[in-house]
């Protein structure tokens, strides 16, 4: 599909719905992913990321809405869609009992390469992914990072036009994560469109051209990483007061100086607020001192996924599961 220009949508989803019993796992997801780009789907556990990917990769039939991959409907043209996609699921989608080479040869044979081609491609991929030493070891003895790499290798025995990666780096150490990121960048440079799901804001930030934030089965924000950061503030202020009786005064000062609405969590004694310009924090500290507000702790942090969630949904990412169970 290299003939497609970059304006073409590689993935389009309109109002995707999937229900499991009472639980609306995916509740009207819209996505538009331009060919040749990386699209990040960001959300906590249980947000509906995996279910969305499974519908887009023809593994699950949507209960509502529609989706097209490279212009082909994922339900009506499922066989056609499968010819153009690669998938690396959240759980190792290679055979643990088989060796690295066997897994890649198996995969190559299944996409239609000849025996000789399969052996060559397997050796080539193992070398590229720095797995040659482990080629004849069963995958169950691989480290987490190696597993992720063999998994990725298995998805690209032939170059997919659209590659779906479901949490490709969850549970990896920073070095392995960096390796996986490099591989993804290489693939994109080669013209592959990538849709990846992640729980990590910095991963989406590093890799994705556009990001959809998904929560409880719906897209709650969509845009470039810069758009999202602008909406939550570039960083956020955390202010803990020494004297709780000064809370109202402190909140007013924060609101005036930073020109935002601060959020207060009295139980924790903390005031948080998005910060567009870190210089303003210096002004704030001067005003707090001038007004005699006593500070226990003050800090400016880069936005985390939690901040994104707090700002966009008013609830923290971790709370999601418990809240849902309660509901």
């Amino acid at each position, binding site marked *: 599909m290299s003939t497609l220009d970059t304006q073409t949508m590689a993935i389009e989803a309109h109002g995707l719905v999937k229900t499991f019993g009472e639980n609306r796992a995916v509740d009207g997801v819209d996505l538009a992913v331009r060919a040749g780009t990386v699209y990040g789907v960001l959300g906590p556990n249980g947000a509906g990321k995996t279910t969305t990917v499974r519908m887009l990769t023809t593994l699950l039939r949507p209960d509502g809405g529609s989706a097209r991959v490279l212009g082909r409907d994922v339900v009506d043209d499922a066989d056609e869609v499968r*010819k153009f996609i690669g998938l690396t699921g959240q759980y190792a*989608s290679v055979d643990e009992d088989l060796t690295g080479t066997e897994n890649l040869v198996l995969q190559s044979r299944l996409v239609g390469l000849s025996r000789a081609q399969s052996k060559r491609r397997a050796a080539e991929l193992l070398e590229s992914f720095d797995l040659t030493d482990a080629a004849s070891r*069963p995958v169950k003895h691989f480290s987490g990072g190696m597993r992720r790499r063999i998994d990725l290798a298995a998805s690209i025995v032939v170059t997919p036009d659209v590659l779906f990666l479901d949490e490709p780096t969850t549970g990896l150490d920073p070095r392995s994560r960096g390796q996986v990121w490099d591989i993804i960048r290489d693939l994109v440079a080669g013209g592959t469109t990538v849709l990846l799901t992640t729980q990590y804001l910095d991963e989406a930030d590093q890799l994705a051209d556009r990001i959809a934030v998904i929560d409880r089965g719906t897209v709650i924000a969509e845009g470039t990483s810069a758009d999202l950061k602008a909406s939550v503030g570039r960083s956020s202020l955390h202010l803990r007061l020494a004297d709780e009786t000064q809370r109202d005064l402190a909140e007013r000062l924060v609101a005036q100086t930073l020109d935002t609405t601060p959020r207060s969590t009295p139980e924790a004694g903390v005031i948080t607020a998005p910060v567009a310009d870190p210089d303003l924090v210096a002004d704030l500290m001067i005003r707090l001192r001038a007004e005699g507000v006593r500070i226990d702790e003050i800090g400016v942090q880069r936005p985390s996924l939690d901040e994104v969630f707090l700002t966009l949904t008013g609830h923290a990412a971790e709370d999601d599961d418990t809240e849902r169970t309660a509901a």
Partner: protein
Amino acid sequence: MTTTTTETRAAERSASRVAARVDRPQPPSALSASLTLGWRSVLKIRRIPEQLFDVTFQPVIFILMFVYLFGGAVSGSTQEYLQFVLPGILVQTVVMASLYTGISLNTDIGKGIFDRFRSLPIWRPAALVGALLADSIRYVVAAAVCLAVGMAMGFRPDGSVFDVVAAVLLVLVFAFSLSWIFAFLGLVMRSAGAVQGVSMLAMFPLTFASNVFVDPSTMPGWLRAWVDVNPVSHLVTAVRGLMAGGPDAGDIGWSLIGCAVLIAVFAPLTVRAYRRKS
């Protein structure tokens, strides 16, 4: 510093190689995909040979136990009983081995690899057919062990080598057909333990309430009625006939019809369950 250099080199290699585009060839044929997936199962047997316990040690124990425990009482002599019971135990062992198909499918399918198979442009039932074909190897092992142990204990088929091979083939075809039931159960049941439980429940009336171990003429009427329609009984009679050198076309025919019915009913059900599996 050496490590940094090798890592950088690895990264460079990765960049050049991975980016090189490999175009997708025509998807493999249904047969080729099934055989490739069968090859996967064979590799797994090689990697975990414990999987073969039920087709190696179990028949040995069954043959020894039944022949020496009941031989004298049932047939007057262990030799005579061996001659009678061995084809039955062969059938029972292979039929029991087909149960494993469902259990292994149930454990296998929960893993991410089936997602990958299903996201490939291959003939959908290939993963099932491949697994069932690879199980045939287990059946061959089971049959070979039964025959070898039986012959060592003095079992002598009167039929020709051709008859014996035909008998074994008939058993294999039957087990392949029956394994679709267990594959179906493997797909629709929640856990491997549940599959085993339900399958065993079906397995006992099939194998024990038959003519595998004794002549049904002394059984009460209602039981005899079941034994007479039990497809395993027809299969055992057919195998006995072949091994004794006097094949009974009727029983062979009934066994094959049974196979056809099993496949006609359970293969579509299983494939449907596989497609719906999420």
